């Protein structure tokens, strides 16, 4: 019987426990960062346990680290303590750790793929919901809680019930100016932030196939924002091409052999899913969120919702609360919303193609004087290096943007990069929750090109009409 990719990976990793109980899913790669791991290491210590397979675990620090001069010690003692805890725990338990001075350092979901740790057919977990990013390679990747982090450390398995599967098919060709970010924001705006609950989603269709690996990562990254347990894209030649020559591929296996094995995980022709949702790429506009959950978004040519047009009471209340928090009136044209901050970066849009797209828009322009801050934060040191080799940093700096060291930065504002109450930010990150980027801050999620264009104009603008220099 033809199988989809989820069933294949599940079958290759599920170890039966007892009849009627959750299976133990064997975990091939475990990523760790400083925020969600200290209590897990502590739990191991208290129970006299070790990591079952320390060599399958990789740690990086990303959430707390400064994006300014790293030769200066971290100013916040609590951040320093958490970063130190990770380094000490990794040393004690024999885990490789990329500290903030290591050339491999960066956001965990950027580092994994760029070093080739992330491979098709694998099971991957991390105490971080955006672990779904790795699904772009056809790896089954889950975000987990800290108790589960400890469980994976001690047993190399995760208890799981099989999920239902949903195919999200994006047909047709993407119009010029529309990016992976717009696809995924449009999907979430349609299915809602709980639309994928209980499901693993596989993204299929011509528009998904045509995306680069980095674009595919952007789509899978935000799967969790649609409530799904994981997002997957079947591996193909593009996947192999991306991984070719990466540092951490298995040694001693000819690449062709690896590639064949990887591609064997792709969904079979004629396989089935529990649910299908279809989109037409040509219908997707550049997206901007107007509210306080990633599903509250719309196209650049649209307006914020009109309350009287919402039929269901709870939805109307919810919309009203969101508009109030965002300081927006109902029925406001999206392209009239003015911003005073901009953030390009995060595990959603902090890779080289994102920065390249941002630079193409920025070239020859200047940041609008209404902007209080506009920062560009590469996803990793490797991304930073590559961007500088291409001269992108110069374009940004000349245009008045700040060029930073890598890290999570203003995606969640655990370091000094944060919004002040009332600030309005065009952000390429993945969450526009109340206070996510700083208490009282207002976040609008957009693609890198749309963020840069907003910083230059001082308000959102349709990138399809941009004059490139």
């Amino acid at each position: 019987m033809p199988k989809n990719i989820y069933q294949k990976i599940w079958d290759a990793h599920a170890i039966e426990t007892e009849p009627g109980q959750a299976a133990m899913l064997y975990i091939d790669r475990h990523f760790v960062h400083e925020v969600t791991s200290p209590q897990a290491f502590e739990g191991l210590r208290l129970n006299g346990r070790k990591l079952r397979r320390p060599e399958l675990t990789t740690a990086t620090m990303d959430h707390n680290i400064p994006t300014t001069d790293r030769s200066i010690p971290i100013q916040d003692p609590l951040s320093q303590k958490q970063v130190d805890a990770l380094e000490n725990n990794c040393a004690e338990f024999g885990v490789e750790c990329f500290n903030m001075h290591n050339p491999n350092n960066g956001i965990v979901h950027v580092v994994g793929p760029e070093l080739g740790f992330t491979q098709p057919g694998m099971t991957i977990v991390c105490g971080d919901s955006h672990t779904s990013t790795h699904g772009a390679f056809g790896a089954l990747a889950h975000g987990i809680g800290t108790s589960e982090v400890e469980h994976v450390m001690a047993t190399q398995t995760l208890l799981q019930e099989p999920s239902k599967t949903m195919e999200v098919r994006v047909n047709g060709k993407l119009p010029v100016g529309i990016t992976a970010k717009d696809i995924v924001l449009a999907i979430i705006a349609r299915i809602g932030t709980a639309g994928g609950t209980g499901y693993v989603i596989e993204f299929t269709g011509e528009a998904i196939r045509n995306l680069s690996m980095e674009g595919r990562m952007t789509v899978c990254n935000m799967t969790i924002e649609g409530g799904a347990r994981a997002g997957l894209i079947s591996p193909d030649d593009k996947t192999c091409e991306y991984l070719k020559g990466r540092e951490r591929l298995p040694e001693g296996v000819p690449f062709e052999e690896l590639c064949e094995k990887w591609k064997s995980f792709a969904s079979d022709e004629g396989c089935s899913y529990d649910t299908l949702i279809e989109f037409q790429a040509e219908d997707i506009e550049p997206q901007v969120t107007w509210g306080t959950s990633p599903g509250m978004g719309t196209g650049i040519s649209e307006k914020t919702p009109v309350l009287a047009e919402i039929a269901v009471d709870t939805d109307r209340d919810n919309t009203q609360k969101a508009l109030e928090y965002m300081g927006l009136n109902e029925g406001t044209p999206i392209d009239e919303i003015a911003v005073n901050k901009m953030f390009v970066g995060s595990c959603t849009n902090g890779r080289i193609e994102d920065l390249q797209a941002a630079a193409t828009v920025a070239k020859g322009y200047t940041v609008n004087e209404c902007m209080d801050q506009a920062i560009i934060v590469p996803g990793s040191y490797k991304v930073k290096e590559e961007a500088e080799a291409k001269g992108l940093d110069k374009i940004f700096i000349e245009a008045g943007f700040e060029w930073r060291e890598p890290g999570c930065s203003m995606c969640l504002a655990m370091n000094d990069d944060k919004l002040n109450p009332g600030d309005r930010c065009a952000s390429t990150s993945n969450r526009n929750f109340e206070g996510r980027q700083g208490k009282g801050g207002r976040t609008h999620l957009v693609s890198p090109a749309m963020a840069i264009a907003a910083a230059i104009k001082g308000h959102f603008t349709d990138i399809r009409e941009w004059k490139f220099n």
Partner: protein
Amino acid sequence: MDTFTTLTGIVAPLDRMNVDTDQIIPKQFLKRIERTGYEDGLFFDWRFHNDGTVNEEFELNKARYEGTSILLSRDNFGCGSSREHAPWALDNYGFRCLIAPTFADIFYNNCFNNSILPIKLDEDTVDGLFKECFATEGYELTIDLPTQTITKPDGGTIAFDIDPFLKERLLNGWDQIGLTLRHEEKITAYENAQA
């Protein structure tokens, strides 16, 4: 791990959909390396104004909900970040049971790893509970896990569903790692077959 069998407690209503874990415990409280001490950060941005003063309008700040141990909320509770600091903060504050129409996946799992019982009830039932809770000062519910029932102040009962294995775990306070390690030879056999 603590066990969970029965609980009688005051119900606090949080009448919002999509309560996300950033809201339950904002990032500035994620820097601790312990599992305790998160109670002051719970719903921080709602409990306090930007200038640091107490937001008297927020339900949890009202005297009538003091000592609450049951939280009532709407759809998709616990969405967003996987941070287990969210159930820790709820637990540290005193919540042992959560009631909502739906919960986000990761959060739901995290609750069971912290002996918190998340109960899913259909939307109409939840709506009814909200109405009664708002109307009655000191509104209490009794949760009985062995019989899977909720008893209301008027004596009426509501049945709820729960996975039998998760129920056993809560009743016995079983540590999941210990349970899994009973199957260690199966894990070893799997590893050997891959090598």
